[in-house]
């Protein structure tokens, strides 16, 4: 009897999850045909939050870049959508893609500056950057200055015929953004760069001594995340149809809640942001009537999770059942043939 050892990158649980996931995606794609208008809108919002959370998780959970200033790119993307469609007459879909590109471009000089700050000071530095973005856009009177502006109706109408078709398109864009972001994060982490990132996360000194260029790897992740965040931002304000500096660059809406989602779900895992988003919206839909109390409960839950179960909900499940739905690592298995 010979025991062969083989290396596997997948597991039965992952295969089952993939099939189930594909099924759920098909059902979700068909949502405009079975869901009501309000549900569709809510689900669109959920997907956009999922995308934001996955991106922040990549940034903080894998690259160790704990940013509290991602609202800079959410707002930037939103404003670019408005500026490009209103001033250049570009179709909204083109403007959304361009907003992502511009978001990535502008993040390059930003990174060059704030990467000089370490740890927690990096975090607040990103917040300062977001404030600079907010104040600059508040100065642009053509975009409504401090009070903001609405997307002109002819641009909104140019997207699709009729309100329901437009809402369906907006929903599919949100779903598409979430799928693309989660897939991109998954593929990135499975790649060579992902291995480098995981090594940096686990031990910066050791990974540097193995020849990983830490600065460049983090820089790459920061720029990619910023560009994708800008696209999500453009989609958020395509849904809202109205933008103002305070809404676009809100630290609570686009960063605090996103961080709570990731931490409650489980930071440093792909599954975490998905679980966290579901928990966040369950809490919100059940406690929303309580207003400010709901936000206090949310803050409290996040604190308790961080202190008592820093690995979050998914970390707990993974630890307990050795489960991984998005297989990233390599497993050594003994094949049973004799």
């Amino acid at each position, binding site marked *: 009897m010979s025991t062969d050892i083989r290396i596997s990158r997948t597991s039965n649980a992952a295969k089952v999850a993939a099939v189930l996931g594909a099924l759920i995606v098909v059902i979700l794609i068909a949502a405009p045909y079975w869901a009501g208008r309000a549900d569709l809108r809510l689900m669109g919002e959920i997907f956009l939050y999922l995308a934001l959370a996955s991106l922040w998780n990549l940034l903080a959970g894998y690259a160790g870049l704990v940013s509290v200033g991602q609202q800079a790119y959410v707002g930037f993307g939103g404003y670019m959508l408005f500026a490009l469609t209103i001033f250049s007459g570009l179709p909204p879909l083109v403007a959304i893609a361009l907003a992502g590109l511009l978001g990535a471009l502008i993040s390059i000089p930003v990174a060059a500056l704030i990467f000089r700050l370490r740890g927690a000071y990096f975090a*607040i530095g990103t917040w300062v950057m977001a404030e600079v973005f907010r104040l600059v856009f508040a100065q642009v009177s053509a975009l409504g200055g401090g009070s903001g502006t609405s997307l002109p109706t002819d641009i909104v109408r140019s997207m699709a015929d009729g309100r329901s078709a437009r809402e369906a398109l907006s929903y599919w864009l949100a779903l598409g953004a979430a799928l693309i972001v989660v897939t991109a994060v998954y593929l990135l982490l499975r790649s060579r760069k992902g291995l480098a990132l995981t090594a940096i996360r686990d031990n910066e000194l050791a990974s540097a001594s193995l020849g990983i260029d830490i600065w460049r790897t983090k820089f790459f992740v920061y720029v990619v995340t910023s560009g994708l965040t800008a696209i999500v931002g453009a989609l958020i304000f395509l849904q809202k149809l109205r933008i103002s500096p305070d809404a676009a660059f809100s630290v609570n809406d686009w960063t605090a809640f996103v961080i709570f989602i990731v931490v409650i779900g489980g930071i440093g895992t792909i599954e975490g942001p998905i679980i966290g988003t579901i928990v966040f919206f369950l809490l919100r839909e059940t406690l929303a009537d309580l207003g400010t109390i709901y936000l206090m409960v949310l803050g409290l839950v996040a604190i308790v999770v961080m202190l008592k179960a820093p690995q979050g909900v998914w970390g707990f499940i993974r630890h307990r059942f050795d489960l991984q739905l998005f297989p990233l690592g390599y497993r050594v298995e003994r094949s049973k043939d004799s």
Partner: protein
Amino acid sequence: MDFVNALVQGTLLGGLYALFAAGLSLIFGVMRLVNIAHGDLIVLAAYLGLTTTVALGVHPLVALIVVVPAMAGIGYVLQRAVLNHTLGDDILPPLLVTFGLSVIIQNALLEGYSADPQKMDAGALETASVALGPLSLGVLPLLTFAIAVAVIAGLQWCFYRTPLGRAFRATSDNQDIAQLMGLNKRHVFGLAMALALAVTAVAGILLGIRTSFDPSVGGGRLIFGFEAVIIGGLGNLWGTLVGGVILGVAQTVGATINPGWQLLAGHIAFLVILAVRPNGLFPRISA
């Protein structure tokens, strides 16, 4: 003349920013903790001051007698009950927990005091001024600056001349050895946070006399304080005062050019200094 006036007013404003920053600088120096809720704690102090003045009918500066010990007590309890559990090599727990605290304080204030802007009434002090040649200096900004200098001098003295300061410095240098020497680091950290929030109480009252405030303004105060700390250099209290002054001057000069540029000019001054001197002007410790 406008320019000289802006310089002087900005310098005095810098005193307030240095007070925002001093508590931040102190706790970072002692336990490497960056408190995201710092700005909200300043606003909380302002509201406590407001309640005290209204309930007891006293002048806001007299309310300090109540608010300073109250904030110090909150600081000690907060540190012992919550923040001590977040300290370690990972920066995420303190950041996230203080972020959560920030959201909780903001919404608790919103629940208790509503979103309406409030202001403390300091009577004649608000409008009194003294003439200095062609310049007219407000008594309140002068007083604020003097208090800032006194507070920083006091903290400096406490740090380098008292047993408590020795305990702070020892724990900052090496927590484990400080423990072996008979210091309880949890208690020392609690005292550091109490001292930091006592300073925050002073900052909050002066903020509340100077301008109107509402529960949402904490984030902005945190950023000003943070910028003052970084400009001055980490761990250097007098540097923090200089940082506050640079920030204040940049803001008032920006405002004289265009009122919309006030805050932007301050942030740009910060970013320029970050680009040229990443460790600030007078760094004592590295982050």
